[in-house]
């Protein structure tokens, strides 16, 4: 390789910097995951999953149930809005028209707002003004606004990736726009939409700042939509900050991390399916 001979000392420095940075990034992640696993796995016991939380047994079961409810309800609110927005933007609206520009701009703004501001808004609006107090309902609506731009963007991208020949074929067979959307476009965009939804699940599961003052931070089995609760992430936070049950905090963090890794793998698999489909 002749090109190696061209390297001057400066190039070797650049070479080292770049390789070093890449390896460092990988190392940090591996260290973080390893650190949590090594300290957490030995403390995962069956009692952690007992249905009742007591002072002696910091069971994560109520938090797990609350997390599942939060994920389900939030998706139920946000996904239809996200998908419909994307359908409107891609299939109906004229590109570059004023409503499209406004919708895009607001979605971008939403995507940039930090979660504590969503939490503050949820506390003012859903919890106090609408009188829902700190509850599962208030938490879900807050998170739904938070993940809306994510669902929107991923759906939009997967709608855009569908070749126009699909649409033209459907129109040529006499289908209207509506039928085309529901029978042709959305089914073929499904894997992409699914990948986006999974990413949103990850956001919901990992969220804390937006939930402390909307969902509350009480650990108990939720009774109805107006119960306060605590998700897994909030549970880790609380145990860590209180500092009395660090072992349980590690164990809960392992469960949380496992969920996140699972979600990531699933989303990547869905994305690979999209790419294969497009070929």
């Amino acid at each position, binding site marked *: 390789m002749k090109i190696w001979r061209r390297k001057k000392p400066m190039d070797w420095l650049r070479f080292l910097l770049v390789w070093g940075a890449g390896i460092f990034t990988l190392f940090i992640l591996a260290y973080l995951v390893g650190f949590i696993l090594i300290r957490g796995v030995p403390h995962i016991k069956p009692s952690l999953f007992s249905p009742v939380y007591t002072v002696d047994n910091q069971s994560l079961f109520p938090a797990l149930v609350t997390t599942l409810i939060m994920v389900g309800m939030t998706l139920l609110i946000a996904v239809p809005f996200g998908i419909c927005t994307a359908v409107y933007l891609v299939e109906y609206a004229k590109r570059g028209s004023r409503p499209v520009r406004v919708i895009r701009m607001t979605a971008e703004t939403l995507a940039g707002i930090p979660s504590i501001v969503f939490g503050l808004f949820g506390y003012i609006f859903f919890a106090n003004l609408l009188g829902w107090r700190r509850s599962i309902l208030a938490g879900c609506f807050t998170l739904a606004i938070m993940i809306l731009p994510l669902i929107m963007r991923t759906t939009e991208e997967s709608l855009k990736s569908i070749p126009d020949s699909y649409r033209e074929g459907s129109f040529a067979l006499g289908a209207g726009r509506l039928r085309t959307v529901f029978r042709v476009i959305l089914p073929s965009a499904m894997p992409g939409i699914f990948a986006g939804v999974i990413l949103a699940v990850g956001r919901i599961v990992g969220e804390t700042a937006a939930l*402390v003052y909307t969902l509350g931070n009480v650990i108990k089995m939720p009774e109805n939509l107006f119960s306060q609760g605590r998700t897994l992430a909030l549970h880790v936070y609380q145990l860590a900050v209180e500092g009395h049950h660090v072992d349980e905090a590690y164990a809960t963090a392992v469960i949380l991390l496992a969920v996140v890794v699972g979600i990531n793998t699933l989303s990547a698999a869905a994305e690979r399916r999209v790419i294969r489909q497009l070929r």
Partner: protein
Amino acid sequence: MQKERVMRAAFFMAALASVVSVALICVFLLYQGLPTLFEIGPLQFLLGRKWQPAALYSEPSFGILPMILGSIYVTGGAIALGVPIGLWTAVFMARMCPKALYRVLKPAVNLMAGVPSVIYGFFGMMFLVPMIFGFLGERFDMVSGSTMLTASVLLGVMILPTVISIAETNLRAVPPELYEGAVALGASHERAVFKVVLPAARSGVMAAIVLGVGRAIGETMAVRMVAGNQTALRMPYEFLKGVRTMTTNIVMEMNYVEYGSLHEGALIATGVVLFVFILLINLLFSTLNKGREKA
């Protein structure tokens, strides 16, 4: 067709959800925050050096200058640490990395973006805080390892995936002719990448940095767990002391405020100031993007 028209309207209504959300957020934050801001006095609030919401023997004082500066310091530190490493990693991934390693690195960066901030915070609390205290504690007479520096290091790691993925996309978008031309003129691979490809992706790199700033300044829980959260006014050289940011100010005290009190209003007003910072950053980001689209 009637049905088509109805559904079109329905899609449009649904599409307004994000517009309505942003409008509601702006209106209610301002509606709750601005009156307090003016009651305290905008200058006293923004430039006040003392945050003492529940003083026993004196008037309460609501000055958030220490928190504004705290946010700026911690974000600055995170950028100083995270951006070089992030950029070099992006260069590595886009131009230098062997394929086999890329297949590990890419999912790793994605996973890093997915790890919840509590986990980063917990890791910081259990690993970084004692480590920094262990290394520097005695020499610099520190009280604890929860410092501005700790928060900066942790945030620097947390913004890595944001910086890396945006910068990588933009580095890959640089036309190959530029690189090939440089090599044809006799540049080495590294020289071509650093002197030609990287400058060509300048606006994309800037966008990556701006997004990293946004992520760092808005981060709450992880910072709360490692920054110490003292409300004292700090100078940049006091990076081995604890600091409180705007985000953590809200999350630390919201729990025990009285509903409708001046204290609650002051916390919401802190949120308003943070929101303004974020809007400015967003504006910068979209201007950069527009500039890139034109180019």
